[in-house]
């Protein structure tokens, strides 16, 4: 029972990370049809910025916030300065984000080296709380709380604001949104910046949980986030939340109860199963 509780909460922590990365990816894909590899770069950027700022100022929270802001600004710049030039050609856009990811990762390596750098995580994050006898590090709760907060804020954004409406409508039928006199490109920029900010949040939290930042941190998480996006349904915000929970828990349980590494394989099989039986994903409308 104790281990089950531990596994469940750890799995939910993992799910929280997946959700933070996947929700942005999913909205970006849904709206702009761009499979955004650069998302991993924003994630790494968030981790390193948090590491730098936290190291200099001593405040981990400040590090997270600065990381998110920097990433959001860079995300907006990427969309307006580069992606927009491709005029909606999807494959070149994907290629562009691949190039950005490769160049950015190499840049980080050139500046900070290839090795992982220790992250000055606040001590309280590693302290343990007992839940039903299971020792749970506080960092897991931080992950879960961050994800829930983001979910609430994003839900309010999507349902209560005009830009939220534009995003939801744009995922469904982009040309019709423009035919209502709306410059949908502004929503692109917004979603790109938002997604980058969330990726940076995930990046700094990963760094805190793992106690280190490294140049390739982004890519590893990105692949699972892609899987979550597909399982949840491209463009579906709630779908990515559901899929993140499913994948996080499944991965954690299988890794523990079956064999280490098996959980990751099971997730891949789940993806294949979903694609073959329900290609639009759990909550997706249709696949592009």
């Amino acid at each position, binding site marked *: 029972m104790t281990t089950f509780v531990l596994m469940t909460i750890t799995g939910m922590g993992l799910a929280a990370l997946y959700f933070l990365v996947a929700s942005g990816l999913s909205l970006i894909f849904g709206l702009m049809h761009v499979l955004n590899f650069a998302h991993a770069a924003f994630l790494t950027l968030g981790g390193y910025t948090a590491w730098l700022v936290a190291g200099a100022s001593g405040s981990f929270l400040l590090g997270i916030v600065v990381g998110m802001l920097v990433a959001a600004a860079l995300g907006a710049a990427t969309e307006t300065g580069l992606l927009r030039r491709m005029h909606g050609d999807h494959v070149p856009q994907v290629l562009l984000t691949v190039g950005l990811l490769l160049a950015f990762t190499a840049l980080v390596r050139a500046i900070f080296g290839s090795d992982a750098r220790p992250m000055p995580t606040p001590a309280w994050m590693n302290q343990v709380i007992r839940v039903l006898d299971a020792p749970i590090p506080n960092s897991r709760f931080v992950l879960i709380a961050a994800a829930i907060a983001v979910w609430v804020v994003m839900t309010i954004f999507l349902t209560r604001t005009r830009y939220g*409406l*534009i995003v*939801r409508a744009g995922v469904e039928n982009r040309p*019709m*949104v*423009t*035919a*209502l*006199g*709306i410059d949908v490109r502004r929503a692109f920029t917004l979603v790109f910046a938002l997604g980058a900010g969330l990726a940076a949040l995930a990046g700094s939290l990963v760094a805190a949980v793992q106690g280190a930042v490294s140049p390739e941190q982004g890519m590893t998480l990105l692949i699972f986030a892609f899987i979550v996006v597909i399982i949840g349904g491209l463009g579906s915000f709630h779908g990515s939340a559901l899929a993140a929970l499913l994948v996080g828990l499944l991965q954690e349980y299988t890794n523990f109860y079956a064999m280490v590494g098996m959980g990751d394989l099971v997730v891949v099989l789940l993806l294949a199963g979903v694609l073959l039986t329900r290609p639009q994903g759990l909550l997706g409308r249709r696949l592009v």
Partner: protein
Amino acid sequence: MSDQLLEVSDLNVVLGESHVLHDVTFGVRSGGVTALLGRNGVGKTTTMRGLLGLAPRTGTVRLAGEDVSTLLTHEIVKRGVGFVPEDREVFAGLTVQENLKLAERRGSAHHYDRVYELFPRLRERRGQRAGTLSGGEQQMLALARGLLNDNRLLLVDEPSQGLAPYLVTEFTEVLAQVTDLVTVLLVEQNLTVVRRLARDAVVLDQGRVAWTGAAADLLSDEQVTRGLLGVGVAAANQEGTS
């Protein structure tokens, strides 16, 4: 030519490997309804989409004298163009109210009273997701989006398609009412509707303009209607009286 609200000249559209529109040239007079007619697949919908920049196009489109042919879709729409597309294209995941809210344009009054008066059903259903509405209700919503703002021109693409006859009549009357407020370019296959509404007519054939003139002249010309629309006047008249 001064009363021309919309002037289209040499509009060409190529979609993929097919050249859909060839040098399409016509005008829409201010006030009243201009019908855009032709058999299936001659490029009527493509003309609409080309005007709005929703399909890649070359040529000139002037709206009230201003060249809008290089503008993006939303910029054209902001100049006072409403679009009611062929298959309604309401946002299925949004509620009726959200669909209307999205259509609100800055710099224009939002005539909810007008819209709800014309379509009381929409007021009843305003909290419902548009995807769960019936076809007729979706068409009301699509039309309502076009009437919500102050528009100079309303592009309406086959509003009668797939609707029950009594609904067709209802929509025709609604359109007849709004022609006082806005100029309409109407794509329509149903000649009864055309007869009721249209002042002018433009007929397309295989991506080219084949006939322009007064709608009444067109409908009284057996040869033209049979040749270009595939319907005899007799049939059309019969349809009109039934």
